């Protein structure tokens, strides 16, 4: 499996711990399906913990953007936690660094939903 997604709930916030690759095909689809399932269940306060992600391609970046937009359209928020440097580089190149809310501390990310 390219991408492993572990789900935790803290209060009203769902944290998805992502481990592996978010690339065209399997990895991107897994992320899409997981976030879609959460939104359908009414969970629209979501943190993606990317600390365990080793590789993201343009399809994966596109998937992060799509999930961000979809979540926002439901009135919720999707935030990013623990970005590895190379993912940060990819977001910077495509001017997306300021689009996402990005955190390095989980508690600070959780508190930001209050």
């Amino acid at each position, binding site marked *: 499996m390219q991408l492993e997604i572990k789900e935790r709930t803290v209060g009203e916030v769902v944290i998805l711990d992502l481990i592996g690759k978010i690339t065209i*095909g399997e990895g991107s689809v897994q992320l899409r399906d997981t976030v879609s399932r959460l939104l359908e269940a009414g969970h629209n306060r979501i943190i993606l913990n990317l600390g365990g992600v080793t590789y993201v391609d*343009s*399809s994966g970046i596109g*998937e992060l*953007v*799509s999930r*961000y937009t979809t979540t926002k359209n439901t009135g919720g928020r999707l935030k990013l936690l623990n970005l590895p440097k190379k993912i940060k580089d990819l977001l910077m190149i495509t001017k*997306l660094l300021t*689009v996402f809310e990005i955190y390095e501390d989980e508690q600070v990310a959780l508190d930001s939903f209050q």
Partner: protein
Amino acid sequence: MMLAENVVELTIASQLEYIDLVTTLTDNITSMIAFDEEAAYWINMAVRESVANAVEHGNKYDPQRSVDIRFTIGVDALRVSIRDYGEGFDPSTLPDPLDPNNLLNPAGRGILYMRTFMDSVEYARHPEGGMIVTMSKRRAPRQTDEGDHRHDAVGN
């Protein structure tokens, strides 16, 4: 006889599953010719993006159409060409992913990444059909060469 450059070729079916095969070969080649870890990572990504475009947008996942990848290991640079057998396109007509109106588009960033990570990226229509993308990345001179590239040929 000392070869000025070596060529490695690979042909895959238009299936995403084969992209990892190409990037694994890419890693082996960049390691063999001593690109540093950072450069190797981004070359891997540029190749991945180009092959994914060929499979998805070029050949449109048609199993009857292949993607041909050619690595040319030159003395001064690594060149990678990726050919598909699709309808072809004009890259200048693609939306600019950095345009504020396009920032939240789900797709369209792959070519920007390729251009960022490689020294050159050129698109051409192949005379027999399909597109061919040729990318190159300069090789850093070996420290022991002290600026003399003449002894930097692969196979020495």
